[in-house]
């Protein structure tokens, strides 16, 4: 009998069956990963355990007793805490206020006892061996540190079942490593850790057991010793993915599309010199804060360049604004697609043509909706955006991977020469990831130069033709991607600088 048992859970939204007859059992003192493609039902299942949703039928047993949780508060009382994918911290408040949100120690007239609050907060952080000032505002912390605040917030509530929903999607590798050692520590304290992640290498690295969901159904559980990436993937997709990444470029000596010479921006990056050729994918790897995104911003005209030279298609250029850059044929896909890339409250078709509206204006100055429709349909088909009849759906209703494809489509319609993609597959499931990778490769084969910024080493190694490594605002090296290993790149990325958390 496990600590937590799920029996025959069913859940549907409207007519959409999201979970069908799922039964699972979890033990105390294990890290149990739940994997599956987006839409497989992982998050829904976790929300049922956490009391956010209620199952249509089926039961949740805690220590062998039927648990009836109607809301997150009930779940907390039962000792179940969720560390959410999107941080659930109020960033205008202090660390202590967040950790003890709604549980502040109060005196007789409802006034907060600050001393005790700060002391309690420090104690909670000490339990996991982290020192932090309790009166610091959360918005001033790094994302990694915020994640730790979130974890401490959950832990401080006498929790023995901890659910992590994509905890590392926003973390750099070293921050993620720190978090894993924390998870192992918690497991050794006898807590049950339920871990959800798209990053299978992480899953394999830390899990004691792995359970796989597919299309809302329970497929199976791999015990310790059976856990292998290929095996998990074939269970997830129901078939073997013989090769995760598309082949490398077939023409490595294309014309130079973009060249930068000693590009600098104060406090952001210094002396960055790179070249991008048509037909190749240049991967840029670095830890969070290495200056990759900032570099891309400046290339794209979204931020100034303080010194240095940019040559684009043989001409010296300075892009004064993104509009300028787009007009010349440079595109940038933001890492934060919901906020900076897509109009999530508009339909797919409108998003796809949003950056190339000029092409659809007829002589009398009106938009040609028929033409927009046709072009959108073409891209939906070409990029395999799901569902196939989605052009009049709202973007917010699509899954992460499909949103990313819409964003790609939006930029491809502008016929770019250089495409800068920033974390193109963050939060995207395996199947969609592979599709995005092959789209990027196809675009390169069609003659585009592509700069791909990524924090995921397997992606950098799997897709790039050359790898540029940045650290602390400086370009450390550019390597041809032959026989590179993750260790080699990481060593470069740390570049003897001590990176403190």
């Amino acid at each position: 009998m496990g600590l937590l048992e799920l029996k025959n859970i069913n859940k549907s939204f409207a007519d959409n069956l999201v979970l069908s007859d799922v039964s699972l059992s979890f033990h105390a003192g294990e890290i149990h990963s739940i994997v599956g493609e987006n839409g497989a039902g992982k998050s829904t299942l976790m929300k049922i355990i956490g009391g956010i949703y209620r199952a249509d039928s089926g039961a949740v047993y805690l220590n062998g007793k039927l648990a009836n949780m109607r809301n997150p508060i009930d779940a907390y009382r039962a000792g179940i805490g969720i560390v959410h994918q999107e941080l659930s911290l109020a960033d205008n408040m202090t660390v202590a206020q967040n950790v003890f949100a709604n549980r502040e120690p109060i005196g007789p007239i409802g006034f907060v006892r600050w001393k005790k609050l700060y002391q309690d907060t420090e104690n909670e952080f000490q339990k996991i061996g982290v020192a932090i000032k309790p009166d610091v505002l959360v918005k001033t912390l790094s994302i990694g540190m915020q994640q730790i605040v979130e974890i401490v917030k959950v832990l401080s509530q006498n929790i023995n079942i901890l659910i992590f929903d994509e905890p590392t999607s926003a973390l750099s590798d070293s921050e993620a490593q720190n978090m894993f050692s924390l998870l192992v520590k918690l497991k050794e304290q006898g807590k049950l850790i339920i871990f959800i992640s798209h990053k299978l290498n992480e899953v394999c690295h830390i899990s004691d057991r792995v359970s796989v969901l597919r299309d809302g159904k329970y497929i199976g559980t791999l015990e310790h010793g059976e856990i292998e990436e290929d095996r998990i993937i074939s269970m997830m997709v129901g078939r073997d993915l013989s090769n995760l990444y598309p082949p490398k470029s077939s023409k490595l000596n294309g014309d130079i599309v973009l060249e930068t010479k000693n590009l600098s921006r104060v406090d952001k990056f210094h002396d960055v010199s790179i070249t991008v050729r048509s037909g190749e994918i240049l991967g840029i790897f670095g830890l969070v804060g290495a200056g990759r995104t900032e570099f891309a911003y400046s290339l794209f005209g979204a931020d100034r360049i303080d010194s240095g030279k940019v040559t684009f298609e043989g001409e010296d250029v300075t892009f004064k604004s993104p509009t300028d850059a787009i007009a010349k044929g440079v595109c940038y896909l933001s890492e934060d697609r919901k906020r900076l890339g897509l109009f999530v409250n508009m339909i797919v078709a409108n998003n796809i043509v949003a950056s190339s509206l000029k092409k659809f204006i007829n002589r009398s100055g009106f938009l040609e909706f028929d033409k927009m429709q046709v072009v959108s349909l073409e891209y939906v088909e070409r990029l395999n955006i799901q569902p196939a009849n989605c052009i009049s759906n709202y973007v917010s209703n699509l899954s992460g991977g499909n949103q990313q494809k819409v964003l790609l489509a939006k930029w491809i319609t502008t016929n770019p020469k250089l495409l800068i993609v920033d974390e193109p597959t963050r939060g995207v499931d395996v199947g969609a990831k592979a599709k995005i990778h092959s789209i990027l490769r196809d675009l390169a084969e069609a003659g585009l130069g592509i700069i791909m910024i990524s924090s995921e080493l397997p992606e950098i190694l799997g897709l790039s033709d050359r790898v540029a490594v940045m650290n602390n605002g400086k370009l450390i090296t550019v390597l041809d991607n032959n026989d590179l290993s993750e260790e080699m790149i990481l060593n470069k990325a740390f570049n003897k600088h001590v990176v403190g958390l």
Partner: protein
Amino acid sequence: MLRKIKNKMNLHYLVLIFCITCIFVIMSIQSPFFLTWNNIDVLVNNFIMEAIMALGMTMVIISGGIDISISGILPFIAIIFAKLMLIGVNPWLASLIGLVVSGTIGLFNNSLRHVLRLHPMIVTMATQLTLKGLNLAITGGSVLSKFSRSFTSFTAQRPLGLSIPIWIYILLAVLFVALSKHNRRFIHVFFVGGSNEASMLSGMKINSIFRMVYVISAILAGLAGILSVTVYNSASYSFGQGVEMKVITAVAIGGTSLTHGGEGSITGTLLGTLFMAIVYNAFVMSGISTYYQDVFTGGMLIVAVLLSEGARAINKRTNQAKSLIK
């Protein structure tokens, strides 16, 4: 970093205090009457109702909402209070009834917001219009007055030289500063305004926090209505015309963000209120047509919003730089 942000807050206060001092000095030089006790008395009493309501409005705006129904509530409660007294109800009981009714209106505002999921601007606008209509219907457009001698002599009292509304305001201001800094429920208002979702996931009952701020705002508007009757010894549908804009402006000038919930302070509002009061008085004293007051108020609102957004942008940039250097 915290110190830095505190400095940012202080900067806003300093700018305000500086402006207030400047106007003060200029006016004292310009007009010999400005610094007289009489004028200061006028200055304070003229803006006291707005000042009282600004306390509640600050909490509403910090929660991420807005309450423009106050300009309907103020005269409505004034009229109810007056009517009750005219039919012989004891003034204390009439006040209590007035406050309970205004609290109920606040509850109503929040229920509409919650149940219909409407933007508070829409809900409170509807309440404002409805009440304004009721005010006219009840009074038929006439002014209610002729209260008992005992009432008028009671309200004319000035303990230690300050009028009753000012004493009440002082008490409320101290209370609100303390509550907003240290009371758990009030601190949760900042949480809810900063992140609805985070608050919900922390197990806060968000609706009860919203309910609290809307009820407080409405009760303070009701209180202002009752106090208006005590000041003017009459009640009219025309009380509180456009008062909501002045109140919101005072709050915004005090540094509470109209665009991002969760940011602001009662202390800032106290300064913003003082600033507005002095400016209005300066208009009167310097003989500029009072028609220009609102032109100035509008301009000030824009300046205030620009200032707080500017401070935000600077803050954000320094944070980004910090995280990069880290």
